[in-house]
């Protein structure tokens, strides 16, 4: 356990070394939700897709916090870099560490800072906008929300790790990553809540993995799902995480056999 703690500390140090990176990253996340919030503010007191105006604004403001966590959990480009330049050999393959937990430790430092900064920025943003956040917060809702966020974070981490591991076969993974992003935006509910889709499509989308990364925690927080849906949501998230971990193990094993460490 101690060795993974060191990876985490290393990641924290690196995060604070490049403060400009942190600043631009924070600004990027804030700027990305501003026009969406402005759209709903400009429309006045309307309801759309089963959400009231205040609920939609809450959706995007709290979504800002989740977006930061999602982006901070993405590890694919780091994996691509170390696989393509061969440094994975010295960094992980020849060391008595689990690649999964070591990369998780490396990502966790950036993620920890993101969590704190994300919560701060989201609160500040809500205060600046001055529109009340509509959340009937109870201890239960808060716990369900936070646990759904954490599970979503884990799902993003494992799936992005999987994407990164494709670098064992091709180092040109950026187009796949781009499509992954698009799916997150559209099917995860980042751009618009999933209730904006036509009914038939919405039903199909309710099982897609991207929903459990972004939309599901927000649906819990805004009281948009019943208890049975909550339970099935958690089960589906765990199934997706399980499948992703199984996929990771398979790809890791096959990839290791196929890999020829460049320049090592």
């Amino acid at each position, binding site marked *: 356990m101690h060795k993974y703690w060191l990876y985490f500390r290393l990641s924290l140090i690196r995060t604070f070394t490049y403060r400009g990176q942190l600043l631009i990253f924070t600004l990027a996340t804030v700027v990305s939700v*501003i026009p969406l919030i*402005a*759209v709903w503010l400009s429309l006045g007191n309307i309801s759309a897709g089963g959400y009231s105006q205040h609920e939609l604004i809450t959706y995007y403001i709290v979504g800002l916090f989740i977006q930061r966590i999602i982006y901070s959990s993405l590890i694919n480009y780091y994996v691509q870099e170390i696989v393509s330049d061969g440094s994975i050999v010295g960094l992980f393959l020849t060391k008595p560490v689990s690649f999964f937990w070591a990369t998780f430790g490396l990502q966790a430092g950036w993620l920890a800072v993101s969590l704190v900064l994300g919560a701060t920025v989201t609160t500040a943003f809500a205060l600046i906008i001055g529109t009340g956040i509509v959340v009937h917060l109870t201890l239960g809702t808060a716990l369900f929300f936070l646990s759904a966020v954490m599970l979503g974070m884990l799902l993003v981490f494992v799936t992005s790790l999987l994407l990164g591991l494709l670098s064992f076969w091709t180092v040109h993974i950026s187009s796949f990553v781009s499509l992954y992003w698009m799916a997150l935006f559209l099917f995860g509910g980042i751009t618009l809540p999933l209730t904006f889709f036509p009914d038939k499509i919405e039903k199909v989308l309710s099982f897609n993995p991207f929903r459990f990364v972004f939309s599901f925690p927000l649906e819990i927080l805004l009281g948009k799902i019943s208890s049975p849906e909550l339970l099935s949501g958690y089960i589906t998230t765990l199934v997706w995480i399980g499948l992703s971990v199984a996929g990771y193990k398979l790809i890791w094993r096959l990839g290791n056999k196929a890999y020829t460490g460049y320049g090592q």
Partner: protein
Amino acid sequence: MVNSLLKYTRITWILIRNCFSKETAYRAPFFFWVIANLLWLWFAFYSIDLLFNQVEVIAGWNALDAKMLVTVYSLFLTLVWVFIMPNLIVFWRLINAGTMDFHLLKPISARFLSSATYFEFDMIPRLIPIVLVMGTVISSLSRVISWDEWVIFWLTMMLGVIIFYNFGFMIATTCFWFTKIDSLEDFLNATQAISKYPPDIFKGIPRVVFVYLVPSIFLAAFPTMVLLGRGKFDILTLSLLGVVVSTVASQKFWHFALRHYSSASS
């Protein structure tokens, strides 16, 4: 002056050819990027449809106006990703690795070399569906676009690209102090994305910040307004003013930043 212009044109052409050879050498990734870019285009149009299934008008822009705005935005994005973004997003590496030294030592403008070394071509196939959608939207409009409006549209479009370049270059230049900002791409994408929404959604101080300081109105809204008959020479004048102000500001900031450059590892 003319010789200098010819020299820079020749160098740009060589760099474009070099990038084209490099990109087409890896045909499979190139093909996958073309597919990804086409899907992103579909995503932009589909999002607008989803939104306008729920509301009729956003800040005075109806579904057709908004579709035109997104089409023009997509055209802008294509131009920017072919010529501007590939350079801006890797600019920090020059500072981080200290290779800016080599740009400064060459008998050519360092700013030019930092801004026009990379070009990407996988966005170009998007132009076909963009033109098709634009044609459909224009045929649905209740007005005919005159030839002078087309000229002003293209001029404002090009001026918008220049304004975005100046804005993006200023942001990229901050890496003289920050040394590493690989999230610059996310930031620039987010600022570009503001321009696919009607500028009238912003009021008061947010309007000043997100429409003029982050110059989103110049990128897609102004050219779209020309096609929709909401302005002509007034828009062109404002765009020209935007180019002058942004060029002076970014050039001054570039010189200021250069004075703070302390090379690394070279």
